[in-house]
Every structure is written in structure tokens, then in C-alpha cells.
């Protein structure tokens, strides 16, 4: 019979939490980099020049049409063949970032295009530079519009981080595997892992919701009611 009351596992809890910390690091760094890269790609894909647009479109398409795990394996095992060597952690970051950026570029592009063009023109007609129009009018509104979706993507990312255990990054799932090889108690360990993932996702959802409320102009606070938790829309 299984012993559902973890008298073996809590001993390993600090080790699992150590892994969870790495998962959080991976998510936060990839999210930050992915947002920056995704935004640049979004702007690039709206550029006038086909020389800029087409290569970006192609890369985004390839990234979206191949599994993340394959991308991670390629980055970690195949890139060294052409002289690009990343350690496991940064290979993980690279893969997660690339993947996220491809999806976010679509989100950002849609959000940017959704900003009322009349307001853009009003800003231009006041003499604002192109950069000022982006900074003062487009980005604040596009950011607000994409925030709920971003939240969904962040939670998906948090869970996707488990895939980098395949390239030996010492994150939560890999630490769990190590614990199991030691205790042979897969049931309790995986339950523990599930609980930790749940807490991380749930807490993130709350934080995102809070940020969203803070950034919403007071005249619309009551109108936003996007459920963030367990939002499957962000998932691939």
C-alpha cells in the first residue's frame, strides 16, 4: 500500500523547493527576455521593408510549428556542433525565450494594431516623434490590452519550464526525479510537485491580476473581468 502521508518526502522538500526556485528564475528571465524580443519582432513584422518582415515571419512560423522540446534539444545538443555552446540553464532560457517571443509577437502585433489609429494620428498631429507616439500612446494601451493574455502565457511558461529537465537543468521536475531515484516514492513526490506547481501558478495569476488592476484607468476598473487562473488560452 502507498503511504499518502509524506513521512519520507518532507525531508526532501527543501531540495524540491530549490528546484522550484530555479523554475521561477527560468520563468522570470524567459518572460522578461521573451517580452522584449517579442515586442521587437512584432514591430519588425509591421515594418515597411520586406527584407525585415519576411525573415521574421519565417522564423516565427518555424518556431511555432515545431515542439518546444525539440527546439530545446537542438539548442543544447546541436548548436555546439556549429560552435555555439550554452550551458544547460542558458540553453533552457534561450529555447523558452525564443518560443515565447514567437507567440508574444503575435499578441503584441494584434494589440498594437488594435490601438485606435485616430489617437495615433492625434499624437502625430501634435508633433510627437514616432518613438514618442509608441511610448506615450501605443505601448500603454497595447500593454493593457495584452496583459490578460500575457498572464496566460506566463502561467503556461511556468509549466513549460518542466521540459528543460530533459536537457538536465536542475529545476523542479528534475529534482523530483532525483528524489524518486533515491526514495522510490514517485506517488508522493509527484503529488508534492503538482502542489508546488499549483501554488506557483495560482500565486502568479493573483499577482498578474493585481498588476492589471493597478494599470487600468479608474474609469474601466469595473469592466475588466478576465479569469486568469488556469487560463488555457495561453497554452499552445
Amino acid at each position: 500500500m502507498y503511504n499518502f502521508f509524506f513521512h519520507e518526502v518532507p525531508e526532501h522538500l527543501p531540495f524540491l523547493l530549490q528546484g522550484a526556485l530555479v523554475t521561477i528564475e527560468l520563468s522570470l528571465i524567459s518572460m522578461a527576455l521573451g517580452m522584449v524580443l517579442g515586442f521587437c519582432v512584432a514591430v519588425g513584422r509591421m515594418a515597411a521593408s520586406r527584407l525585415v518582415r519576411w525573415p521574421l515571419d519565417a522564423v516565427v512560423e518555424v518556431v511555432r510549428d515545431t515542439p518546444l522540446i525539440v527546439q530545446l534539444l537542438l539548442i543544447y545538443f546541436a548548436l555546439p556542433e556549429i560552435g555555439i555552446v550554452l550551458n544547460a540553464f542558458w540553453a533552457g532560457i534561450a529555447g523558452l525565450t525564443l518560443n515565447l517571443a514567437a507567440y508574444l509577437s503575435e499578441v503584441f502585433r494584434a494589440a498594437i494594431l488594435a490601438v485606435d489609429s485616430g489617437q495615433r494620428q492625434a499624437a502625430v498631429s501634435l508633433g510627437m516623434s514616432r518613438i514618442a507616439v509608441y511610448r506615450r500612446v501605443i505601448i500603454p494601451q497595447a500593454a493593457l490590452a495584452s496583459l490578460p493574455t500575457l498572464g496566460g502565457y506566463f502561467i503556461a511558461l511556468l509549466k513549460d519550464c518542466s521540459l528543460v529537465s530533459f536537457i538536465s537543468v536542475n529545476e523542479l521536475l528534475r529534482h523530483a526525479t532525483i528524489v524518486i531515484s533515491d526514495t522510490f516514492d514517485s506517488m508522493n513526490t509527484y503529488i508534492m510537485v503538482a502542489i508546488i506547481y499549483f501554488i506557483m501558478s495560482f500565486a502568479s495569476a493573483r499577482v498578474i491580476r493585481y498588476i492589471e488592476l493597478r494599470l487600468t484607468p479608474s474609469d474601466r476598473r469595473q469592466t475588466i473581468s478576465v479569469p486568469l487562473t488556469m487560463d488555457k488560452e495561453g497554452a499552445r
Partner: protein
Amino acid sequence: MTGQSGEHRAESAPILTIRGLHKVFRGNPILKGVDLSLREGEIACLIGSSGAGKSTILRCINFLERPDAGEITVFGTPLCWQAGECVQIAPERTVQAARARMPMVFQHFNLFSHRTVMENVMEGQVVVLRRSKAEARARARDCLARVGLLDRSDFYPRQLSGGQQQRVAIARALAMSPSLILFDEPTSALDPELVQGVQSVIRDLSAEGMSMLIVTHEMRFVRSIAQTVHFCEGGRIAESAPVSEIFGSDAHERIRAFMEVTHG
């Protein structure tokens, strides 16, 4: 009356000169050689049927559209000019500086929806004119008071009526301390009972000597405010005349015919 003040200002130098302006949209020539000029302190109305190209003229002056040929000079600075076959465009910085001196008021107000009324009126001052926040706020209060909306400073645009939004848009333009304001059908999107409020704000500006170029369909408004009327037809300014001549005599058949057809 306004007609007389137009005459005594007639000596002042032109602040806007357009010559041979052309604009093509997807192979369709829309503007086919527009000539127009405006003197300092002059109030000119641009009339003509829908689709005649009135908005396009304003948008070219403000450089929201890039002219395909012709010359535009504002405040003595050329924004575009003809060099042989090609049209030369002034550097982006020059264009931006010119825009800041001739902001535009749009048919659909186009207020920044993520900013309050006060922030809307401060925005251009802070970002473009680099005024300090305190200075911009003081000026914004002044402008909002002039359009009668100081008490709405902390509202968001969507909390205001169309007429109020348009008055905020006028305050936003006015806050730039402009030399010229461009109006594109400022009252066309408003419910009839809100038109008066906006028109009277514009009339107040005229009393202060603000130069304005106004696209409008409201003939009574034209009559009460304009010194000059330009009639736009077939991608050109078909006729230009002082307002007194148009409403006073049998001359300018085409403008009168247009007015009779559209406005009884």
C-alpha cells in the same frame, strides 16, 4: 463684422501656402493641383461635397499624408517642394516642429483614451514642447477653462459627451500655443444639440485672432465665422472668395449652386 476684420488683416503675410498639391491613393488621383493660402489671423472655411478631398488637404498640410507632388510652406518653412520631377520632403524634425504649431482637431475627437482630460491637454506640451509638468498643468487649466470644462479635468474621455470631448480636443490643440489650428468637420459627429457649444468655442478663438482652417458643412457657421471660403471640387480648389461676396451677390455660381443643392 468678421468680414471687415478680414480686410484689415489682409496685409499680413501668409502663414500657409500650398501650390500644385497632388495626392494619389492606390492609383486614384484625389488631389490634382490644390492651390491655397492663408494669412496670419485669417479664418478660412473649406467646403465641398463629401469625398471631394477636403480631409486629404488638411492631412497633407499636417503631413499625416505624404503629398505626391507640390509645395507646402508653413510659417516660412517649406515642408515639401518640387525638385524637377520629384517632391522633396523636409527632415522629420522640421515636419514635427511645424505640426506642433498647427495641431489638428478631428471629426471623431481622437482623445487619448488612457489619459484623463487634464493629461490629454498636458500631453503635447510635456512630450513635444518639453514644458515642465507644473507649467503644462497651469496652461492646461487655462485652456480647459476657456472651453468650459475645467471641472471635468479628472474625467476620462469616455465619461464625456461628444461635444465635451471635442471641446477637450480643442483645448488640447490650444495648449500647444499654436499659430494655426486645423479643424476637420469638428461638429459633424455630434448630436445637433451639442453643435452650438463647440461652435461657440471656435467663435471665441476667432475673436482672439487665432488663424484657423476649418472644413465644415455648416453654412450658417461659415457665414458667421469665415473671412474666406474655399470650394473644393474635382481635386482642386475650384473657387476661393471672401465670405461677404459669397453670401452677398450672384457671383461665384459654383459655390452657390453647391450650397443650394446641399443646404436648401
